[in-house]
């Protein structure tokens, strides 16, 4: 009874109070762009009453006349507005400029940026999608400090290699792990760049430690897009452009130049006549073309309180700048977050990609080696069969145009990934999260060799079919805990993960068929069959905890135990751990500065591992494939096993300062040192043992470096915005220990030497040209006295350390300008230092050893010896070669430094007012150019195509690209 009376009194009081002072206030909440902000919270200050804005950003609330409304939304600065008797109040919210409040995707979860204690770099979608390529790896170039992207070549659909903070293994894997939406990938995943919301690059051991034995080389996490709450959007984007072949500083001779060169060589062959000057065919021109590139993506996003959907489909097509290679890719992705009830959220995801490649590419080797005096067709336009032509001068007697009349190859790859994920909220503090993924990769290849072609002559034509299939399963079961008690904040995740992989391939070749047949059944004779299979599995347990006090002090610790199938029974499991701490100095009471807005210090230490590439290194085996004699199968000694083989271990320390100045400049300075030991090393045995060698854990490697990132908002007015970004990474790689306490282990033209970079070149040192007789010279070092002399005898020259293939520093800078909707963005990438071995020069710069190959035009600063007393870079050209001048030596080691304008984009963002009348919410038009301009001394075609270790041959250069694009959304 007493309860009832109290209630009534309170209600009466409240009502009375309200009747006396309350009024209804309505209005709309907008974001900084003027769009309505649904689901924003409008609360009454000092009370727990509040409402949410609806789909149109509108709200209606009953509040006292002199009350204060508190309007807030995630990611935006909270605004307080006094009611002051008004009945209609519109509020505009501005995004939270404090970057440290952002949420970042990290290993197995998300974390607030200010709480991060390890080294994580984040790139948002807008900064990624500037260049026009089909893969996401290329988009990282020059954008993240310490990340080096090394192109495999400019052919359509080719994927480059990404290297984070230098190489951390001598012979194991050095490439980072890729994770897409929580699923660890086998290799580099195929993701439509337009589907990417953000990429997190985890660089140090404490960030990657949760990936245990796969984290030693860094981790790249791709998170695909989700819808923004309340906004339903249909987006269409298209890019259409043209690729242009870019041969850089490399040029082969034309008829006149080659004729003069042969005159220098005193060519006495009977085919060497002045008539040759009438024959001048440009092989490079005939093989290259301006190639079309096209991309279309359509995506739909919608989000309500219950369901968040992202669906996208894309098409990408690219022709090769070298004729005859075409690439097409179709992608589809669907992400759904379905909130069944307050506890359970289902998160199924489906994605697939389909690649279709056609290959009848002009032979790269022939394009450069064929002579301008040989042409592919005769006067009547018939394709010449070089071997039968009496007129053909080129040494290979090969005209690739002949077989290209009929022969070609195709490949089709289908990759599908399905996630059955869900989150279950057990209590307020505990959530169970489950990630379950099946990925199926299927690839089919076909190659056709016509009976009329030279390749098909002996077999009367040949058809080859191959198919490969990869099936991967991954399941991660996690239990998450998060609790805030006063100023203490603690969170943790514990998990179990199992991942397995199975690969199977099949191939068959049939010979003898009538021109035009394409299936194996039409062939008369089965020629060969091939089949292969392999598999691996991993099982792990992990635990990670984060603690923060008052958003000022942060701490993190994690531990993971991994087991893998490719280690012997003795060492199947290993444990990895990490610690990290962070301190928001700017939040301290003693810290007062007008200049420095935020200042954070963080340090971390962790251990990670690396599995070997070889799947069964611990067994003693005999090889049974392709071993047969007179049709009887046999077995032959193959591998010397090591049952004690274990993981490579890396221990990394990372210290960094993040700061923001003048509300304009954001900078991060980072120092790290990573020590890798128990390196997986294939110890070479002398051939006399009948084994090449065996795997052993021996040796140590150290990578130390600095990274510096600076971002500056130079201008930030309403009309004009200009932002500059700069990043640079310096990494020093050093071998600290080698097998058997040795100081050096030579391996071909490279050497592993304690105290030196692991990619050190070890070869005869070129000492220029003898000015008296034009012969080549190398250095010869006396082993006893250490005295250096010059010798003209290649075999006597001493093998020496002559530089390394690793760049001294890498980085990039970009500029983004926006004036009343017009924008101009540029992005540069640079690499400095490091030597590439340009092995193709032994063919094209051979001083006469290959007189019937075309040769390269001497680059700037090069000269050829002709008379006694000449000081020249190139020895005398002699028909038949000059004393081994083109054999492996530091002569062909070149500086791989370059500065390249990766992208420049100029466009216009149509004004919202104009668009709203058409029912379009956003539209953007632009023109863009990729790789337009490069500064480099490298004499080859493309210093970017240099391989991670710095060795290159006749490469497919990265093309220049001109693109026009439109994006618009409804």
């Amino acid at each position: 009874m007493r309860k009832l009376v109290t209630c009534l009194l309170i209600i009466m009081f409240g009502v009375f109070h309200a009747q006396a002072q309350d009024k209804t206030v309505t209005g709309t909440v907008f974001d900084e762009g003027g769009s309505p902000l649904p689901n924003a919270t409008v609360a009454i200050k000092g009370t727990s009453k509040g409402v949410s804005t609806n789909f149109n950003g509108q709200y209606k609330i009953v509040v006292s006349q002199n009350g204060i409304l508190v309007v807030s939304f995630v990611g935006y600065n909270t605004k307080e507005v006094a009611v002051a008797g008004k009945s209609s109040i519109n509020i505009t919210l501005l995004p939270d400029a404090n970057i440290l409040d952002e949420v970042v995707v990290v290993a197995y979860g998300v974390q607030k940026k200010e709480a991060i204690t390890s080294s994580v770099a984040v790139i948002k979608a807008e900064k990624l999608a500037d260049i026009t390529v089909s893969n996401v790896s290329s988009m990282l170039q020059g954008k993240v400090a310490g990340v080096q992207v090394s192109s495999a070549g400019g052919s359509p659909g080719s994927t480059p290699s990404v290297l984070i903070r230098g190489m951390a293994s001598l012979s194991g894997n050095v490439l980072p792990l890729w994770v897409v939406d929580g699923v660890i990938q086998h290799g580099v995943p195929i993701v439509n760049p337009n589907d990417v919301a953000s990429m997190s690059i985890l660089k140090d051991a404490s960030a990657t430690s949760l990936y245990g034995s796969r984290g030693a080389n860094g981790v790249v996490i791709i998170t695909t897009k989700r819808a923004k709450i309340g906004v339903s959007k249909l987006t269409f984007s298209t890019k259409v452009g043209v690729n242009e072949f870019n041969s850089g500083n490399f040029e082969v001779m034309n008829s006149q130049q080659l004729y003069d060169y042969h005159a220098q060589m005193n060519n006495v062959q009977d085919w060497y006549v002045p008539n040759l000057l009438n024959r001048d065919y440009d092989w490079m021109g005939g093989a290259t073309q301006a190639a079309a590139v096209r991309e279309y993506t359509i995506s739909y996003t919608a989000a309500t309180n219950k369901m968040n959907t992202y669906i996208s489909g894309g098409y990408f097509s690219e022709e090769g700048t070298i004729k005859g290679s075409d690439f097409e890719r179709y992608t589809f992705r669907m992400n759904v977050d379905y909130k069944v009830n307050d506890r359970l959220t289902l998160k199924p995801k489906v994605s697939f990609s389909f690649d279709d490649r056609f290959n009848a590419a002009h032979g790269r080797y022939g394009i450069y080696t064929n002579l301008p005096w040989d042409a592919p067709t005769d006067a009547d336009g018939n394709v010449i069969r070089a071997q039968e032509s009496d007129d053909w001068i080129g040494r290979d007697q090969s005209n690739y145009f002949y077989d290209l009349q009929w022969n070609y190859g195709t490949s089709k790859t289908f990759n599908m990934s399905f996630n059955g994920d869900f989150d279950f909220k057990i209590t307020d503090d505990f959530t169970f999260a489950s990630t379950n993924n099946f990925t199926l990769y299927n690839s089919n290849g076909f190659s056709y060799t016509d009976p009329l072609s030279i390749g098909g002559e002996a077999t009367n034509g040949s058809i080859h079919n191959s198919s490969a299939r990869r099936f991967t399963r991954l399941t991660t079961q996690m239990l998450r805990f998060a609790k805030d008690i006063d100023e203490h904040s603690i969170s943790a995740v514990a998990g179990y993960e199992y991942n397995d992989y199975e690969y199977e391939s099949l191939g068959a070749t049939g010979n003898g068929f009538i021109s035009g047949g394409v299936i194996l059944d039409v062939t008369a004779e089965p020629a060969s069959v091939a089949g292969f299979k392999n598999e691996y599995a991993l099982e792990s347990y992990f635990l990670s905890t984060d603690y923060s006090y008052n958003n000022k002090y942060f701490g993190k610790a994690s531990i993971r135990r991994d087991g893998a199938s490719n280690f012997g029974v003795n060492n199947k499991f290993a444990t990895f751990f990490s610690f990290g701490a962070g301190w928001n100095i700017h939040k301290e009471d003693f810290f007062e500065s007008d200049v420095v807005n935020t200042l954070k210090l963080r340090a971390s230490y962790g251990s990670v591992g690396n599995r070997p590439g070889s799947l069964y290194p611990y067994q003693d085996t005999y090889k049974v494939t392709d071993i047969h004699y007179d049709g009887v199968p046999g077995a032959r000694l193959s591998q010397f096993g090591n049952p004690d083989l274990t993981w490579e271990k890396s221990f990394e320390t990372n210290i960094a300062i993040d700061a923001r100045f003048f509300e304009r400049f954001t900078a991060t300075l980072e120092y790290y040192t990573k020590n890798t030991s128990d390196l997986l090393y294939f110890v070479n045995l002398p051939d006399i043992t009948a084994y090449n060698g065996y795997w052993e854990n021996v040796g140590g490697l150290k990578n130390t470096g600095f990274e510096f990132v600076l971002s500056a908002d130079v201008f930030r007015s309403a009309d004009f915005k200009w932002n500059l970004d700069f990043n640079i990474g310096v990494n020093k790689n050093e071998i600290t220990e080698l097998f058997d306490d040795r100081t050096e282990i030579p391996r071909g033209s490279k050497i592993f030497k304690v105290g030196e970079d692991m990619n050190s070149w070890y070869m005869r040192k070129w000492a220029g040209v003898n000015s008296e007789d034009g012969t080549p010279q190398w250095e010869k070092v006396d082993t006893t006295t250490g005295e250096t002399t010059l010798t003209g005898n290649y075999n006597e020259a001493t093998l020496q350390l002559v530089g390394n293939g690793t760049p001294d520093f890498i980085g990039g800078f970009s500029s983004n300008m926006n004036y009343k909707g017009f924008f101009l963005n540029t992005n540069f990438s640079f690499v400095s230092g490091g030597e590439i071995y340009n092995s193709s020069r032994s063919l094209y710069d051979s001083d006469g050893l290959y007189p019937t190959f075309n040769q390269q035009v001497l680059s700037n600063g090069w000269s050829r010896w002709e008379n006694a007393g000449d000081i020249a870079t190139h020895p005398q050209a002699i028909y038949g070669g000059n004393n081994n001048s083109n054999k492996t030596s530091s002569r062909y080691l070149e500086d791989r430094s370059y500065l390249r304008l990766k992208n420049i984009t100029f466009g216009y963002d149509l004004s919202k007012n104009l668009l709203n009348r058409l029912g379009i919410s956003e539209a953007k038009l632009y023109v863009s150019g990729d790789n337009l301009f490069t500064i480099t001394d490298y004499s080859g075609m493309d210093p970017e195509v240099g391989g991670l270790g710095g060795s290159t041959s006749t490469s497919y250069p990265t093309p220049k690209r001109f693109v026009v694009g439109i994006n618009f959304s409804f």
Partner: protein
Amino acid sequence: MLKKHIKMKKILTVLPVIGIMFLSCTLERNPYDQIDKESLFENEGAIEAATIGNYASLKGDNGLDGWTDQLHRLTEYPGDNISLSGSTSDPLNFIYNYRAITTNSRVATFWSLSYQTVVGCNVVIEKAEEGVSAQLDQLIGENYYLRAMVYFQMGNVFGRPYNQGVSNLSIPLKLTSEVDDVPDRHTVGEVYDQVISDLLKAESLMTENKSATFATKEAAQALLSRVYLYMEDNENAEVYANKVLASGRYSLLDTEAFKKMNYLNPQASSEAIFSITLNKEADLPGQWDNWYTVGSLYASIEGNGWGEMYASRSYIELLNKNEDDARKSFIAAQYTEDVPSDRKPWVIWVDNSYVYQTRLTSEVAGITSFVESGVTYQINDEVVNGKMKHYFVKGGVKQYVDKDFEMSKRNGFPKWFILKASLQEDEVHLWSPAVSRLAEMYLNKAEAFAKRGMDQQALDELNVIRVRAGIPGYILADIPVGKTVLDVVLEERRLEFAFEGQRKFDVFRNGKIMNRRYPGGHLWGASPIYEIPASHNRVVEFIPEKQILLQPSLIQND
């Protein structure tokens, strides 16, 4: 509250089930392309499988890049029967022109495959028990034979000829399968002793009459004959050659069959004693495989092959001594016209700079001539020592020429394709290199007789080969002035075994000079080498540089 509790329980029970669904797993995975060594030797057929594996090392996987391929390049290219029409980026270039490099990848492969085979034989010899059965003894004997053959050839490549000193360094002899056993270089004498000991052991163990594809007692005897010949133990060279002849298992192919010897699978040849056999179905399966064989450098057949190395001028001249020499069938001159009546006549000679000179001729009223720079040169005939020779006069000097028909050229070299390493069973470049064939027994005996001054017996053996080759035999009176019977025997050996990898050793072990004064890419470039005496440093190959780096106690050749 109770309801919540039950719900929790339900979920907690479901979770482990989900987990278990994926826990079908252990972490054990095994390879599919290899067999664990212990498992292999538990099998009954293991000894045979391992022996087949040793033969397969010699042949090469799928018939490519095997031991026999590299051996051929190392033994034939330094000879004087072949001429490279230029230069090549393939390291065989440096084997050919005597400008050896320590980093030659073919030499490195040869070294590596040799030891792979030898250790494979050692494993069988260690694991198999003698005296259990004739079949098993045969297999063990085959392994002894293969080991001996490999060491013999390695010794020939890296060690100096026997008569230059038994204490010269040869190759390391590895006789166990222990990984820790890494011996240093043994001497020439020690290597020969081991080879002979292994061959005698093999001879005693092998009793089965297997085909020429596998080693047999007679194969061991045939190889022993050659080994003794190289050692200049002429009595034993003759004894073992006779053992093979007396076995009755082999007979020389007749002249017509001999002309097509390269087409025969060794099992179909009555003359083959032991050849490393490539199988028509199983070997060279790939579309481009024909391009990477020994034969592909010698000839382009049906569009397959490089066709860059031809018969040398000095070999062609030797063949031309007798018009009907059956060995001409292994050379295919590439005339520009297929139909003989369409062919354009020309004359060909080699000038003082060892460059081929050719001139198309025309015949008017029985007189052959050619025109050059407005001057007409008439081709005259004269008989010298019973042979017709042709010449023209320029500047008062007689230039002798050969008359032939226009041929295709490469870099100025007329294409004399070599077919001896191709066309087995009509497959383009399929070829089973012969280790021993019966003809060698006759020539071994001839040389063994000649070196003991038994000239007539030497000629008797020699003439068997000549008659089979369709050319007249020698009588003592016919031996040309300035030549000995031994010279004539060696010349016949050159004719008969051209392109079979024996010439280099035949020249140097007899203390002769390798004469390279004929057109070829070996004379291109700066400092060409015209002659190589038997004492030259480059009579032996360098030990692969990488092996010395891995085993520093190995001493490099000079």
